[in-house]
């Protein structure tokens, strides 16, 4: 998080973490499509030219809530390939909230689990609290066959305190909800730590409606 009082700007870092090919980049692409041009920056995909290995994707979003507050969101993804362990850890530095993008396909269970464990390790190594970091779970690729059933999702949702959001990133389904639920948790968390609500006179509900409006979000488009 970065607070620039002079510019009345709050910058938040959100990271979309998950196993390779779970749909992290697709989430950012969908967000880019759904957000109004005035509120979005160019989607940056970082690859080195020689070996085309990916460092991260970055989607900058800017929501002008009022004259008193501009919220900038920097939404990052991590590279999936195993070799980029160090890069993933660097990207998690200073993160304000994580959307864990899991692949709903049953055969991906192990990859989901491994990525989650690895992420916890990185957060710890970065001195972040694994237990307290705002986090949402997205179960992507709900359109495919051989996936975790809706029943299983409900059961998972009942057992975890993280919001569990089903999605089809390729169709933009659940993508906005993921971003906004995460933003909500992040705001509440930062409000607890820094009293943002009092500083900016913006309640959690006002923030969400404000951001939704400022981003000009057209759900499902």
């Amino acid at each position: 998080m970065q607070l620039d009082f002079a510019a009345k700007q709050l910058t938040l870092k959100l990271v979309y973490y998950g196993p390779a090919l779970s749909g992290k980049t697709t989430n950012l692409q969908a967000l880019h499509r759904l957000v109004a041009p005035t509120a979005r920056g160019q989607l940056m995909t970082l690859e080195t030219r020689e070996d085309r290995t990916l460092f991260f994707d970055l989607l900058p979003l800017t929501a002008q809530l009022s004259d008193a507050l501009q919220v900038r969101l920097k939404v990052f993804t991590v590279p999936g390939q195993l070799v980029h362990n160090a890069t993933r850890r660097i990207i998690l530095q200073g993160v304000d909230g994580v959307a864990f993008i899991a692949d709903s396909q049953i055969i991906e269970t192990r990859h989901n689990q491994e990525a989650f464990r690895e992420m916890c390790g990185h957060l710890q190594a970065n001195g972040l609290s694994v237990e307290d970091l705002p986090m949402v779970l997205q179960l992507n690729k709900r359109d495919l066959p051989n996936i975790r059933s809706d029943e299983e999702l409900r059961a998972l949702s009942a057992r975890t305190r993280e919001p569990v959001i089903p999605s089809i990133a390729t169709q933009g389904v659940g993508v906005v909800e993921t971003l906004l639920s995460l933003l909500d948790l992040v705001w509440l968390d930062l409000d607890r730590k820094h009293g943002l609500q009092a500083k900016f006179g913006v309640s959690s509900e006002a923030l969400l409606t404000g951001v939704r409006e400022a981003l000009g979000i057209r759900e499902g488009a």
Partner: protein
Amino acid sequence: MRGRSESRTDLVLAELGSLEDAIDRDALAAVCRSFFALFGLSVRIVGESGQLLADVHEEAAICTYARTFPKGRAACDALTTELKHIDPGRESLVHPCFTGAVYRIEPVAYQGRAIGRLILGPYRRPDDERARAEREGAPIARLLERVPELDRAEAKARLRQMPVVREDTAARISAHLAVMVQHLAFASHRALLASEMHIASVRESHRELVAQKEDLEAAYARLQEADQLKSNFLSTVSHELRTPLTSIIGYAEMLRTEMLGPLDGELRECAQTIQQRGEHLLQLISRLLDVGRLERGHVLLERTWLDPAAAVQTVVEDIEPLAAKRDVSLALELDQPLPTLHADPIRLRQILLNLIENAVKFSHDGGTVTIRVEAATIEKLPREGLAAALFGPPTQALRFRVIDNGVGIPASAITKVFEPFFQAESGSTRRYGGAGLGLAIVSGLVEAHGGHITVQSAPDVKTEFCVTLPLERPDE
């Protein structure tokens, strides 16, 4: 070139520091030149700090003329400097030149922040617009006020050579140019991030390797030291203490059972005391060794699938005589049916024995100890456990609850009862005996099984220890 590679972007937020640091000036100059060729308009690009980054302009005829006079040159220089430092905010603005022409200042924003601005002009506005402007004061008149040496006709003629641009056209072109600069910034930003990320990743990998190497070395040193300790401490304890102690107990027993000849009553009692205290000491030594091993995470579990009901029943039967002495009744409540449990039977017995013994020990005479065993699932998952849940079935578990209505544990002590040697009442050692090791061992063993233990106590009303063990370890 910079002497050393300092970070020009903030990697955590991947911010572009400033236009002046990031942008490729040759590319910027090329864009400005083609812009000039296309529209015949001078353009300057400045960074947030006012540093000039690109400047493609052709001195207008009126400017050349005005600059031949000291006053004209001074006014012109002052304006050029002023222009670079005008902050237009979020919207573009039009700034007048003393010649009657204007400049347009357009902010360049990137990812929601201002990174610089471009200055377009000078240009003249068309007659209709100028007419409006002239009502506010004729420009030629004002120009002559500033530089009285100018010849009026000459100045007018030269001013007329300046390009005329409609305001909405100027707005469109400058916005367009700002977008092009944004794209250039984007390309530079991406290239910078890629190389910085590359360096940071390599550095991080290196750091990781070094840390791993140090960890390995430290672990190796610890192992060697532990080996040393094992061969010193453990063998001392088990050999130097246990061996003679075993003989003492053996001889005492031989005496007591009169294998070495008849004894009178008093001597036999002495022999019995020696044997009992000896056995107690032996037990204490093995418990101490247990605590040491558990603390170092050195317990090896030998798990089998076992019947939890049978395990609890045997422990209860063994404690029955002790409870009877204090008139404490033991109530066993077993859910039907109970699943089988993958656990180390000896260790499970140790867990139950310690908890039930404590419950009896700290009960009032005539109290009741209830032991409940029930099937459970491990419910709200801590984050670390979430991985297992993604998306395996919920962890099936078994819960053992040992409940008494004895003296209980004061709130101030409740978090400490699992620490080795802790006893709630310092005088209690005398009153209740024990070394304060039981719960330390229990919690270590529960953890080794991947379970957890909790305690709640309302003194004299209800004290409950609750052990939850997964039917299998989650990562099996």
